[in-house]
């Protein structure tokens, strides 16, 4: 449908899937909260962006990027492609990252505004990128933060590419930098090659509510950067929070994003009022995400019903515009003596509980494998194969099959492969949190 208004905010809807029935005295309530944003207007490159978005690209220029030289060349071309994907009017900058961070374009602590001329000058500036130096990712992020803070754009985003470990910075410094940047901008992180640390890259993306992935072959960087930038250009609402209100006596056990990836948000809560707290979800385009909410309610007698939690999607107040409630859903608890009702497991809850366990089994299995614990690795990765199989997570099943020989997927019987390519192991670990949607019933 045509949308003649300026890039309008998408409409949000919240659906709650749960089995609300508890046995007498039952206390744990599980629900899958599905948030869908639609109708935000399909934005194309030709559409002026009205200064709603600002993007900083951070390119690793450490010495290792020249080994092999395809990495540096791939990074340069990918950054150029990302710049070509910028919509007119988008504020942007390019940073070269080593043990220090340097502005490549436009410089002097500013952001450029995308148009044909600035795009051409930015790409020209990329030719000057050369490899040399160490890696201190925190410095890159702090420079990006400084640049983005000068922007009034609602959507502030970073794209970070690294090829190695964060060797020239204390982990605590990176940690503190991520904590400081969280909520100020969102960031996608990519590792190119196989010499980087999966947990560092996924940790950056997780803290800054972006995506993480591996680009093992530098030749694929351009395609990946283009897709990533298109995704950023599709964002229309920033800083959306999932607000959970709970009655007196109700404790939140956990809050996890479970689709498209598993992200535990439990510790990310900010109290926002009496018995209410916000969990950050970052920026939204036309997309759908699912959250698993588990709360513990006070036990009650059969026949009683209560509201266990009210899940609201909230856009914060921004310059003049007051805080807006975008959508809400109710998580309920109903006590019944109907055993069939109270013992049933909601299919969505079952599915995403399985997907979360799948991610954990992969991570624990790979960890055990690194430690030389063959039995532990075999058990965990076998369980992962089983879960991926029953839930129809074909992508993860395929990645697992490069690390283990599957004897019986249904039973979860596997053998560890003697020889596993680094790229395959890192791909599995990086993508372990990717989930599939619940199957149609």
């Amino acid at each position, binding site marked *: 449908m045509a949308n003649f208004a300026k890039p309008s905010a998408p409409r949000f809807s919240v659906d709650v899937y749960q089995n609300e029935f508890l046995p007498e005295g039952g206390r744990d309530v599980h629900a899958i909260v599905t948030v869908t944003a639609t109708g935000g207007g399909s934005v194309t490159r030709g559409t002026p962006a009205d200064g709603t978005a600002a993007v900083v690209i951070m390119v690793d220029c450490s010495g290792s990027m020249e080994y092999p030289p395809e990495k540096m060349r791939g990074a340069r071309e990918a950054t150029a492609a990302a710049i070509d994907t910028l919509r007119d009017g988008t504020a942007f900058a390019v940073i070269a990252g080593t043990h220090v961070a340097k502005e490549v374009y436009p410089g002097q602590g500013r952001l450029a505004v995308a148009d044909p001329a600035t795009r051409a000058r930015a790409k020209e500036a990329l030719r000057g990128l050369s490899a040399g130096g160490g890696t201190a990712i925190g410095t890159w992020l702090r420079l990006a933060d400084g640049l983005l803070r000068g922007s009034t754009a609602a959507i502030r985003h970073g794209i970070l590419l690294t090829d190695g470990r964060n060797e020239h910075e204390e982990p605590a410094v990176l940690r503190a930098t991520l904590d400081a940047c969280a909520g100020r901008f969102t960031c996608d992180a990519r590792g190119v090659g196989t010499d980087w640390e999966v947990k560092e890259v996924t940790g950056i993306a997780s803290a800054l509510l972006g995506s993480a992935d591996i680009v093992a072959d530098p030749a694929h960087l351009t395609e990946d950067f283009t897709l990533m930038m298109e995704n950023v250009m599709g964002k229309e609402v920033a800083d959306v929070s999932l607000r959970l209100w709970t*009655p007196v006596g109700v404790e939140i056990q956990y809050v996890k994003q479970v689709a498209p990836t598993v992200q535990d948000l439990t510790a990310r809560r900010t109290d926002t009022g009496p018995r209410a707290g916000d969990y950050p979800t970052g920026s939204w385009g036309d997309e759908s995400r699912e959250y698993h909410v588990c709360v513990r309610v006070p036990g009650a007698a059969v026949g*009683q019903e209560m509201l266990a939690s009210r899940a609201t999607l909230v856009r914060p107040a921004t310059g003049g515009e007051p805080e807006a409630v975008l959508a809400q859903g109710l998580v309920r608890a109903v006590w019944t003596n109907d055993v069939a009702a109270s013992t049933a497991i909601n299919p969505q809850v079952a599915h995403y509980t399985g997907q979360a366990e799948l991610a954990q089994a992969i991570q624990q299995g790979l960890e055990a494998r690194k430690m030389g614990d063959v039995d532990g690795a075999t058990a965990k990765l076998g369980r992962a194969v089983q879960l991926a199989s029953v839930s129809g997570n074909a992508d993860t099943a395929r990645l697992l099959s490069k690390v283990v020989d599957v004897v019986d997927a249904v039973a979860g019987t596997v053998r560890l492969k003697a020889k596993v390519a680094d790229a395959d192991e890192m791909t599995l670990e990086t993508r372990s949190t990717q989930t599939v949607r619940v199957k149609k019933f």
Partner: protein
Amino acid sequence: MPAPAGPHGSPGAGEPAPGWGSVAAAAPTLVGDPADWATAPAQHRPEQEPEQEPEPRPGPAGAAYPGHENPYGAGQGPADGPETRHDRPGGDPAGGHPGPPPGATPWGTGEGAHEAPHENPYENGYDGPPPSGAAPGGKTCVACRAGHVDTDGYCEHCGHAQPRERDHVEEELGSVAAVSDRGLRHHRNEDSFAVSATALPDGSAATVAIVCDGVSSASRPDEASAAAAAAANEALLEALPRGAHPQEAMHEAILAAAAAVNALAPEVPGAQNAPACTLVGAVVSGGLLTIGWVGDSRAYWVPDDRAALPRRLTEDDSWAAQMVAAGLMGEAEAYADVRAHAITGWLGADAYDLEPHTAIFKPDHPGVVVVCTDGLWNYAESAREMAQVLPADAAVRPLHSAQVLVGHALDGGGHDNITVAVVPFATQTEREPGAAPEPGPAAAPEPEVEARPQV
């Protein structure tokens, strides 16, 4: 099941049944001793009517409400108005309910008489401020008595659901009254009723009562029962004033109710768990009593003269009833089985073989028809038990009587939703006891196929 021939010798159309003026169609297979019919004395005992005061009764009825003459503190009698609702217990502490002390409600918010085991059903140990002043200008939660009730009907403090309109519904028209209650063990009321009064073409009054019980294992049972009760009621209100025969009208009303329930189902062929419900209806018109039903909701006849024997007028579409009817089990054994209450007939999209049962009676003595769901009759199964629970002045205080019956079920544990309509039946004209049936429209031949009860 074939053979409507029951223990009463299957009276043909118009053939008088002993003790009743006539049965204008094949009688349903009634439960109980056929002698009941023959021995039912039809004399009026002047000292028994009309009773102005509820007489403390011995037995279950008397024990029903120790210290609670009227369980709801409302509807003291027909004079109280056409409709009394009591769905905001404690919601308006300053408003002042006429009857019970604060907290003495059927929802167990305090120390209600039949709520002893549920003194604090919320178990959250909340000790909030006293109700007074807790919620200026808003409704106060009945559970914690501290929080406001939000627009969703939940307390914004403790989260507990508030009583809904359908949790307890009462309605009284001059000639009929009904009460429906959520009970103590279900979280919502899936029963529905409709009562109405209209006039026949000759100007005489006709009374309609419909009671429906949503099938819990189906989806949206509350919507099913509401749709069925409304549709059947409307169909009868359309048919009776234009002179339709009541039994035919009842048959058509059940079909209309079935169509209304079918319409609730998603238009997916073979969709699972389409909404479903039972139905039982009674029409009192032109000196006739017409009953129709599908499922296990029931109608009982309780003569005003309590020396006469009461009767059950319906035969359940249930596993137990089928076992008994087929002679495979004794009544006690069948009803003790876990499958006893599995119903074999209902209204709804899954019911591919709908068989409405209808029957028409011409009682020659006054009495009361009790039309109810199993939430009541589980606590007063036999006609004799029902008659014991029904107050003696039921004919003149139908609403109060319905309240007492609901209270009886709550006292018994209130394990299901409870709905009952009380329909007084007065004989139209002076009639000699045991007189031969009068000729008239009522005795006209019936459409046999539709009238034949399926048992």
